[in-house]
Structures are given as structure tokens and as C-alpha cells.
């Protein structure tokens, strides 16, 4: 009495009108959604606006936003031919995240490992727990 459906075919009247059919797939019912949430995520047009907005906001010193962008649109990174426009933004977000993380971690590691004998007295001024003490951030008094 009931036909079985694949997940992708669920006529979810929600925000995703239709997935993108994978043109290279043999099976008729394989469809690729642009977001990692699949049918619960965004439609393709919305995905494009979200991806571009995340990419642009990430320039405000927000590498974590770029990382979230890549995570969210992970299927786009895997099936780049299905979503060319979204792929443009996601790849650039990934590159931006990697570059920023490399820079930040190199600075943080230099600071942590080098310590005082590398940076001199500035180290004491910059390290967080001293700064917290000086500004009284943790004492609430």
C-alpha cells in the first residue's frame, strides 16, 4: 500500500523546493542538496545568497565564519560541478580560513613558545592572565 521513497524525493513543502539533480549520476533519484543538512537546509538560490554573505562578512576578522561556511556547504565542495556559483564562494572561504588560521596560529605559537626570552618585557604585558589581573576582569570587585 505504500511506495517507498528515497529521502531526496520527499516532497517537503518546506524551504527546499527541489534539489539539484546530479547530472553525472546514473540513478534517477540521486539528488544533491547544496547544504550539509540536505532537505532540511536551504534551496539553491538561498544557498547562494547565504554563501556570498558569509564570505563577505568573514573579512571582518571572522575566519570562524569562513569555516562554518565551508562546513555548511560541504556538499558543494564535493560536487563542484553541480553548484558552480556557490562553489566560487565556498572555495574562497576555505582558502581564507586556512590562510588566516596559519597566520594566527603562527603568531600564537610564537608567543606561547617563545615567551619572554624572545619578546622581552612585552610578553608580560601581552599575556592574557596578567592583563586580566591588571584590568580586574576576573575579580568582580
Amino acid at each position, binding site marked *: *500500500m505504500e511506495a517507498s521513497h528515497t529521502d531526496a524525493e*520527499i516532497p517537503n513543502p518546506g524551504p527546499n523546493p527541489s534539489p539539484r539533480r546530479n547530472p553525472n549520476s546514473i540513478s534517477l533519484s540521486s539528488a544533491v542538496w547544496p547544504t550539509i*543538512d540536505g532537505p532540511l537546509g536551504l534551496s539553491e538560490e538561498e544557498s547562494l545568497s547565504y554563501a556570498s554573505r558569509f564570505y563577505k562578512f568573514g573579512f571582518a576578522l571572522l575566519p570562524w565564519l569562513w569555516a562554518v561556511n565551508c562546513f*555548511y556547504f560541504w556538499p558543494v565542495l564535493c560536487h563542484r560541478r553541480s553548484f558552480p556559483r556557490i562553489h566560487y564562494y565556498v572555495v574562497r572561504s576555505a582558502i581564507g580560513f586556512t590562510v588566516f588560521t596559519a597566520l594566527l596560529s603562527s603568531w600564537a605559537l610564537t608567543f606561547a613558545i617563545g615567551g619572554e626570552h624572545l619578546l622581552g618585557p612585552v610578553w608580560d604585558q*601581552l599575556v592574557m592572565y596578567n592583563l*586580566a589581573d591588571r584590568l580586574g576582569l576576573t575579580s*568582580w570587585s
Partner: protein
Amino acid sequence: MAQNTRRPSILESLGQEIIGIVVPVSMCMLMVVILVTVLTSNSSSSSSVLTIANIIESSSDSSWDKFVGALLYSLAFVAFTTVITFVLVLLFYLRYTKFLKIYMGFSAFLVLGFMGGEIALFLIKDFSIPIDCITFLVLLFNFAVVGVLAVFMPKMAILVTQGYLIIIGMLAAYWFTLLPQWTTWVLLVAMSLYDLAAVLLPVGPLRLLVELAISRDEDIPALVYEARPVNHHDSGARGGVVRRRVWRERRNDNSNVGADSNSTANSGSDESGDSRSNSNLNSNEIGDSNPDGCTADNGHNDARLVRAEEGQNSERNEELSSPLLKQVQCPGQEDGVSSDSMVLEGIGLGSSGAIKLGLGDFIFYSVLVGRAAMYDYMTVYACYLAIIAGLGITLMLLSLYQKALPALPVSILLGVIFYFLTRFLLEVFVVQCSLNLVMF
């Protein structure tokens, strides 16, 4: 076509949904317990704790004085919460939805940025992590801004949103555990009674909110945790019926007034400031016919009032919590499931048919377990089991009554009872057994 003759039993789908809500609650509680044990063992009785504690009750008071102090504080808090909830109902009634959403985002930013930052500073100091201020600020800024986006934007990666909501609950709960002991317990009991009243009484603010939301078929903007919807392939013709459930949980976000000053004398005026308001959110969900729409997601925004004091900010959070409401509707299901089970069953239904639980419930459950952790791990286990049992009972009651129900009372009262029973009866028994090598 192949026939889908094997129907997944109700237990499978129900179990999956329950797991979808029990796991995040448990994770939040676990993280609060870890934070409490790490931070209280390292810095014994930090100055901040004494500061707050001394305003309300000091360790030198007699038991009765402590109890009275705790009672006064809790009553002030509940009163404040009621007022704020009514204000939120009013705002929602006047359709200031945009304002509520912005307020919610702002409060999330405060919780993540300031509270999260303070806790991170505590950890950095305790473990002497050699991080410099630039890196720390960049990381904190990222963390807070992406959290606000996750909470604020309608469609964001589900995992990211869920993770951030759990973190917000954890941070707020940790700050509540810094209240003195008697106050915490009396506050928990008072809030659960308030929850009961606000949701079930016809004049209760949360009930009003739910009814408003139902009548308008809208979502209330609020911090509500939404579990991933479970697809029940029981109605083949539909290609997977999405059960819609409505769960409105109360979210109580109590922000502790951290910065309250030791300096001030006017503790009386501070009390109201300190308390957070909890608002209960009731949401009723309806209808599958409009899946996108209106799933009764009523949530109150997390209102946070910031009070500057001596250059420090004390934050008050208000959260709207919604009572637990269970509603499930499956459009046209014709499978063997009995019609009444499909009609209205479900706790909190999101627009995609997922279970929703208000953040205030997360927070208060975690506060209870965190306070139990300050005594011993035995009480933690007992309280955890009591809370989960209470959650299960509340779910069952929901399916029974099929209307908005408060999620706090059963769990909190069970938790409190079990805490005191464990502390005063069980511990003595277990310790004596261990000492006499009867049982370890």
C-alpha cells in the same frame, strides 16, 4: 513498486526523538558539571562568589536567616520574571517581532561574549595558559559573532545552531551555580512553581503567549533548542510523514549578577536587578498543512538587561520559556498507527517537525546538576537520573494531555528531592558500607 511492509514501530521513532532531546540536555549538564568541578577545585571560594553570597546570605547567618534571605531573593526573582514575561507578551501582541529578535541576538552576544569571556579568563588563569590578548580577543570575537548569527539567522547549519544553544545554556547555568546554596535551591523550587502557574493558569503569561502565537499562527522569536526532525516513513504515500510536535519549554535564563557589587549597600534594590526573568513560552503548533510556517515555536527572547556597576556589567537574562506542548499531526496518515496517536502528540514542534525545548529548561536542569556537583558526584548521578526521569514523565504527560505543559516542575522537584535524599540518607549508607567493606 516495492511495498514497504515493515513499519517502523512507534518505539523507534519515538525513541529517536527522545534521544534527540535527551542527548543535548545531558551534554549541557555534563559540561556544567565539568566546569564547576574544574573551577571550584582550583580557586576555592573565589572572591566573586563571596561577593554575591554576602549580599544575600552570609555563611555566618543562622539557618533560618539563610532561608529567609533565599526566599526573599527567589520571590524577587520570580516577580521580576513575571513582569518581564508580561512585557514580552505585550511586545509580541503589538507585533514588535523585529525588536524581539534583535533583543534575542543582543542577549546571545552578551552571554557568549561576556560570560563566555569571563569563564575563559577563569580557565586561563587557573591553568596559566600563555595566550596573548590579541589571539584571545580574535577568538572570542569570532566565537561570539558566529554564535549570534547562528541564533539569529533563520537558516543556519543545524549542528552549529544546536551547539551554540547548548553552549549558551551552559554558560548561563554556570553563572547561576555561583549563587549561594540555599538561594539556589529555593530559587529552583520557586521557578518550577512559577512555571507551573504561568503555563497552566488561564492568566499565566506563557499561556497567553502560546495562545497568541497559535491564533496568529506565528513563531515567537526565542532561544529554543530544536532537535533534528525525525522522518517517520510510516506513510508511504506521503513519502515520509513529518511529525510535527510542539514543545514549548520554559526557558529560564537567570543571569547572575555577577558584578554586583560588594560595594553597594543597597542590596534591596539590587535584588530585582539581579534576578532574571523567566518567561515561559507556550507554543502550540499546528498543522502540517503549513510546515514552514508556524510551527508553534514560541519562544521568548532572551532578554538581558545589562546593568553597569563599577565598570562591570551585570547581566540579566530573561528568557522566555514555553511550556511543554505536545502536538503531532500527521497529514493523512493511513497507516496502522492509531489515529489518536497521530492527532496531537509531540512536544514542541518546530517548523520542520522537530522537537523543541526551551533554553530555560536546559539552564535550570544544568544549574541543579551543577549545584549537586559542588557537593559530591553521588548527588550528581542521582540528580541526573531524576531529571531525565522527570523529562520522560513530562513527555508522557504531554502525550496524555496534549496541550502546553511546563517542563520544569516535574524534573526540578524530583531532582531536588533526590538531592536531599542522597545527601542525607544515601551517602551515609554508602559510606558506612564502604568503610565496613560490604559494598564499594
